[in-house]
């Protein structure tokens, strides 16, 4: 086609739910799956208000650190781990996934929203590396105040909180892939 410049992004808009959500989209695994955890949080805007029309996608390895090639992300069954999940925020700006702790130590997150013309990538890490866990060059490269925005913090039995701040105080570190 000759022209190989990227096609530009546009906002997901406010009315994506009927087009992108599907049964089980936020259940990367069912709740009774061995090692199942909840990964949840709130998306905030620059005025510290919750964002009720954001969409988050996660993509991750399994607990052993392997990249799944299993099909079935759109038609869930109780057994296949596909590594992909999608969750819209509710009116309180909250989202929640059921998944497993990835063997690599992080989950890749894509954030879409009304008002956001081009999605944002980030990562949710389950270990900051200071306790002798997996070290990561990205975390190591960030000042502590910014590093903490990438940490999914335990907040209950098998539950981890990862808030996303689009702007301002505590703004989440967003990524640009080289």
């Amino acid at each position, binding site marked *: 086609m000759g022209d190989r410049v990227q096609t530009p992004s546009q906002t997901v808009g406010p009315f994506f739910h009927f087009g992108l959500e599907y049964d089980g989209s936020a259940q990367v695994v069912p709740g009774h799956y061995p090692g199942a955890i909840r990964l949840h949080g709130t998306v905030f805007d620059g005025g510290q208000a919750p964002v009720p029309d954001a969409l988050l996608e996660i*993509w991750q390895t399994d607990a052993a650190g392997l990249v799944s090639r299993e099909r079935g992300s759109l038609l869930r069954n109780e057994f296949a781990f596909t590594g992909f999940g999608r969750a819209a925020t509710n009116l309180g700006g909250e989202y929640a996934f059921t998944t497993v702790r990835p063997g690599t130590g992080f989950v890749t997150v894509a954030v879409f929203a009304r008002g956001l013309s081009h999605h944002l990538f980030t990562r949710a890490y389950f270990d900051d590396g200071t306790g002798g866990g997996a070290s990561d060059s990205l975390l190591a490269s960030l000042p502590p105040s910014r590093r903490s925005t990438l940490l999914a913090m335990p907040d209950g039995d098998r539950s981890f909180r990862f808030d996303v701040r689009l702007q301002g105080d505590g703004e989440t570190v967003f990524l640009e892939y080289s």
Partner: protein
Amino acid sequence: MATQQVITEEIRRIETDAAARVQGGQSPEVHPRRDYPPYRSSALRHPTQNLVKVDPEEVERYSPAFGHWDVSPLESDLTIAHRGEPLGERITVTGRVVDGDGRPVRGQLIELWQANSAGRYVHKRDQHPAPLDPNFTGVGRVITGEDGSYRFRTIKPGPYPWKNHTNAWRPAHVHFSLFGSQFTQRLVTQMYFPGDPLFALDPIYQSIVDPAARARLIGTYDHDTSVPDVSLGYRWDIVLTGPRSTWLEPEHADG
């Protein structure tokens, strides 16, 4: 709320400034600006810190393995989801998805959603008092072919009002969601129709400040895709980033 005239003046000022930067030697901006004041709801929803450059990790160089058993072939025809025919102008939208090196993006998922011919979405928060169509939902999926091709049958969506400013109307568009072979290639965008009189007035479309970049979102009327006595045809090809090719964002972009 601002008038259209105020919004249009803001749009023109930003475009003039962007054009001067390109004249000054900067690369044209490929993607919309996340910080684009005429699109009012971008104000509190764009990061103010620079994005942090990283090399993709192994998992990020893969995509979810969507496949033909996730998606029925019937899902690419939005006109047959109900008992009756939807109202509106029947169209075919077809094209190819390629990566930055021109290679076909094979076996990947495309999702599509849109308003009906009256400009109304099947969404409980859509307050536009245009009629719903009992024979049209406006959701489709397809898996790209070996050559990266896709084809949807649908109806042409209508323009609709929104609350960015007084008398704000979105040009007719179809929302597209695409996956490449790597998660870093993820793209959500909108396809528009040629000749829409609302282009110059729309801050979402104009948030792509480079005219050539904006034009990449407009499908082309393709008479060979039109089906005699049935429907009109549009072609729209899509280019994803990479893999491994650099993001073509301007090197000196400020913000």
